[in-house]
């Protein structure tokens, strides 16, 4: 369960306030995959960051006792001068993996990402697609209550996209996903409920189909 209480989030520019959320109160029930829709710049990514607790509302509170993955696809938490392997090791360590588990995680990510020799090269040589592959593979290894995914499913060639989707479908039997996507098919396939965000207001829909209809009407 995720509860938003009187949540207000804005960005200050010189003259005006740009509101992302304006005094929002909603309650998202547990065990649902959540799709987030809205036009560009409405604040979908900011909302994801706030749900993942790496950004914070200006007023109000977001309450939840679930674990959230890092937002995939939004920048990346990798150190450029270190290799892919070393970065994977770091993330595994902060999540408490040791010895055997650590090795297992590394070979899992290496296999999944399919970036070949680049795995042992500094991240700064990676393309953004390669970084996303690594980040996505890494998060698949852990069972969070919620996986936070921002458009990452459109990374890579068709075969890789299919593999990612298959993995995710398998994954959401245990974890739940919070997904931002502009692909209605992906949203329909993965998500149960929807959130439409626009002009500082968000609307919660019990059914992803209604959210998609609302989105398509407004665009």
């Amino acid at each position, binding site marked *: 369960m995720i509860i938003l209480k009187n949540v207000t989030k804005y960005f200050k520019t010189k003259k005006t306030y740009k509101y992302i959320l304006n005094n929002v109160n909603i309650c998202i029930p547990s065990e649902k995959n959540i799709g987030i829709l809205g036009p560009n710049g409405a604040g979908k990514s900011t909302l994801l*960051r706030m749900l*993942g*607790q*790496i*950004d*914070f509302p200006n007023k109000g509170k977001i309450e939840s006792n679930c*674990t*959230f993955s*890092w*937002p995939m696809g*939004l*920048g*990346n*938490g*990798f*150190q450029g*001068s*270190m290799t892919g392997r*070393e970065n994977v*090791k*770091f*993330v595994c*360590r*902060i*999540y*408490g*993996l040791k010895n055997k*588990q650590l090795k*297992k*995680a590394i070979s*899992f990510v290496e296999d999944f990402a399919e970036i070949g020799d680049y795995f042992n090269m500094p991240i700064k040589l990676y393309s953004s697609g390669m970084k996303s592959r690594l980040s996505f593979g890494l998060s*698949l*290894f*852990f*069972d*969070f*209550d919620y996986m936070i995914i921002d458009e990452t499913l459109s990374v890579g060639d068709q075969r890789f996209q299919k593999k990612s989707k298959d993995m995710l479908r*398998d*994954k959401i039997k*245990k974890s739940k996903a919070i997904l931002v996507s502009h692909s209605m098919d992906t949203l329909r396939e993965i998500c149960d409920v929807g959130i439409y965000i626009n002009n500082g207001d968000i609307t919660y829909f019990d059914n992803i189909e209604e959210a998609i209809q609302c989105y398509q009407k407004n665009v």
Partner: protein
Amino acid sequence: MTLMRVKNKNIDYHVIVGLLYREIQTRFGSKQFGYFWGIFDAMLMIIIFAGLKKIVSSNSMLHLDFTVFLAVGFLSFFLWKNIVNKSLTAFSANKALFLYQRVRPYHTLLTRLFLEVLISISTIFIFLFIGWFFGFDLSIDNFLFTILSLGWLIVFGFSIGFLSSILSELYEIYAKVMNILLSPLLFISAIMYSVESLPPKLQEVILYNPLVHFMELIHGFYFKSLNTNHVDFEYIFYWTVVPLILGLYLYRKHEERIISS
């Protein structure tokens, strides 16, 4: 496919261990002779100043070995300065990692503190070995109190570093000002001389610098022929506690801003 259930246990410990590995890798792994430079710095200073002293004057401190006096001063000073310096950039250097919810700014500070202390301890051991090898008189007058003073100096470094890390995040100019303030400290902190050897007027002025008290403290406990008469314990107590409390207050207030900026 249950691979690894994410648990919220011992987060601080795991995060700091992860950061420590990472910090060591970036600090020493990428540069050649990385380990060497840490020691070389202090070594060079000691050789230069010990040599100068030999040339310029005869012994003003008859009862102790001036080279050892310098070594104790420089090692303590560099320990303090490195803690402060590394704290200044702790947040900005690790900004990308705040993407992981469990990594919080104070973790990066504590990691850097641990690492600096670890490096200093190993440097001290290397110096002790070198000193012993060349037959210097390394005898310590009051071992326990020397260690305690060094511990206090570490806390003082952390307290200044902690406050500085937040201020440098809030005000861009702070780090620049701090760097300017830090550079002359080497010469006005009673590292190469004792307060006793200065004229009384100068003593009065220089004792406003809290580091002078710490150097007097450490020197005084290390060498039999020196004392801690010039140390104002109350003064350095305030210098330790006030920045720490201020830092804690500002940290609580601005942590979210540091994470999300």
